[in-house]
């Protein structure tokens, strides 16, 4: 980040006064000059374009089936008919024909919460050692782990599935039984670790060395330092990465397709929705309501925790 040398400011007397005494007023002036009306208009157009698709879907999900299939959602402004029927339909555990989304919704939670916790704990343990451990080849190993981030998931799926079903099975006993969440937890943890280690390392490395040194002098071992000092101090980083990991896992489809088997006991809601799209692509009353059921959690997380979300993004985005 470049900074302007002081003497530059001296060349601009009126700026110097503003900069030293009245920052807000200067910002205001800059703002007035720079914010042209055309730019604002362009911004509003982009914002509207970006919002309309979601808005249309939201409106549609509350319209009666015949209306959704009969005409466009913009007709609600002349013909106001709304219903909760669609939501009741997709959530109810009816026959095999029913979308039964509530069950899949629970699966999503059951996959995502442990998946996120495992990644955070194992990731921060490794990150701590990469930041504060002393051993040979540390930097090279760390860069190797970072580079793993970019091995496409696709490359790992087939062998990992074989590993779960063949190698980790002794007779009838499966270490990670299929038909449970275990395989998904482990798969998600593995795929999340490289980025987790990298981001958490960046944060943990910034913790002042004196704090850790002082604890060491007092005779604290690594486990004490890790749980008593590192974890509490790294909470902001853990929170923001945790939110991200949570959203990624919630929105995942590929890993679920490979490891879940697809039944109502394990498969997440994204997988069910993808299925509904394929088999009943014309049933818009179910797809619109279903899509919104799947979005409730991510949107709540997004709007509720926006601050951490953005901060986490910046930590990840500004790594260059």
């Amino acid at each position, binding site marked *: 980040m470049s900074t302007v040398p002081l003497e530059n400011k001296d060349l601009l007397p009126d700026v110097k006064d503003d900069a030293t005494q009245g920052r807000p007023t200067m910002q205001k002036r800059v703002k007035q000059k720079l914010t042209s009306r055309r730019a604002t208009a362009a911004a509003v157009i982009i*914002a509207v374009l*970006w919002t309309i*698709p979601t808005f249309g879907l939201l409106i549609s999900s509350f319209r009666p089936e015949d209306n959704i299939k009969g005409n466009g959602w913009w007709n609600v402004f002349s013909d106001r008919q709304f219903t909760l029927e669609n939501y009741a339909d997709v959530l109810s555990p009816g026959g095999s024909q029913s979308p039964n989304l509530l069950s899949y919704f629970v699966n999503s939670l059951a996959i995502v919460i442990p998946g996120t916790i495992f990644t955070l704990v194992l990731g921060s343990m490794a990150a701590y050692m990469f930041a504060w451990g002393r051993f040979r080849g540390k930097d090279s190993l760390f860069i190797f782990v970072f580079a793993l*981030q970019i091995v496409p998931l696709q490359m790992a799926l087939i062998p990992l599935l074989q590993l779960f079903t063949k190698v980790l099975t002794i007779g009838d006993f499966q270490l990670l039984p299929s038909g449970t969440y275990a395989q998904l937890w482990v798969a998600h943890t593995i795929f999340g670790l490289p980025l987790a280690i990298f981001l958490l390392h960046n944060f943990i490395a910034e913790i002042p060395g004196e704090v850790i040194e002082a604890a060491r002098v007092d005779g604290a071992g690594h486990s004490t330092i890790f749980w008593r000092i590192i974890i509490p101090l790294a909470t902001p980083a853990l929170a923001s990465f945790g939110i991200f990991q949570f959203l990624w896992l919630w929105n995942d489809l590929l890993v679920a397709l490979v490891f879940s088997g697809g039944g109502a006991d394990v498969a997440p809601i994204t997988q069910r929705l993808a299925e509904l799209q394929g088999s009943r692509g014309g049933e818009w009353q179910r797809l619109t309501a279903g899509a919104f059921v799947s979005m409730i959690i991510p949107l709540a997380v997004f709007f509720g925790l926006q601050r951490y979300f953005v901060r986490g993004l910046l930590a990840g985005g500004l790594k260059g």
Partner: protein
Amino acid sequence: MEDIADKGLQVVVGLAVFAAIIGLIMLVVDRAPKSGREKIQIAGFLAPALLLLAVGLVFPALQTSYLSLTGRNGEFVGLDNFVWMFTQPEALVTLRNTVIWVILVPLLASAIGLAYAVFIDRARGERALKALVFMPMAISFVGAGIIWRFVYAYKGPEQDQIGLFNQILVWFGQEPKQFLLDAPTNTFFLIAVMIWIQTGFAMVVLSAAIKGIPTEIVEAARLDGASAWQQFRNVTIPTIRGSLIVVVTTITIGTLKVFDIVRTMTAGQYETSVVANEMYTQAFRAGEPGRGAALALILFLMVLPVVVYNARLLRKQKEIR
């Protein structure tokens, strides 16, 4: 209800087992003999993560590389899968589409995101305007697929349209179109969805970078009589170059791996497939794990330059420290 209790129990057991493993590691690490304690502690902390990575990423990547040289029944076929990829029309379409995706998405998403970030910088209601464009980031690709299939929905010309795009065509006196079926334009309509999602990411990161530009520089440029465009070109762009590179590379990687959008909107039919989707189709649907592996390997090779570039950057940073 019983169902939910069962699932809850599974989660509790899973968490308990995990806690037990971690507790055991901590116990061993604390009780380690004085000599070599440091080494045992380091190993205890690193081992779980490194073991999982070795088993789950390094080993599979090597195995996939070998698998790409085998045929339907696991027999060794040399480079046949790669020959197939670069000669068969359907595979070539896949490669072509991936190239189109990887050029258009990072470019347009970053450009629109940057423009938007500049436009709303210090405007009234900046936070709300940001949230609107950023929101698609929180929506799953599957959800986005449904949203956009609804926008592209097609009904015959004699019926009322339910898709917004076709309604707009009708309002302008045009025939409605099958946006997702007509190659080759359908690929561009899928790409629009990815741009819709990624623009928010570009916008947030670049907006933060713009806010980091020292006010003095902007003010100096303004006093020198620079127009808004000149300020943008000569001050804003050079100052946020680092962030811009990061945004473009991140979106590039995401785009190379794009799977869900294609899978849910067209399943890769009508000449819209991309490498990541074709890999899934070949390996898990068509019973051709060798071809699937070959496609995965190509994906890896496409991402490789980005890894090397980023790893170099990282090494440089480490040296500075």
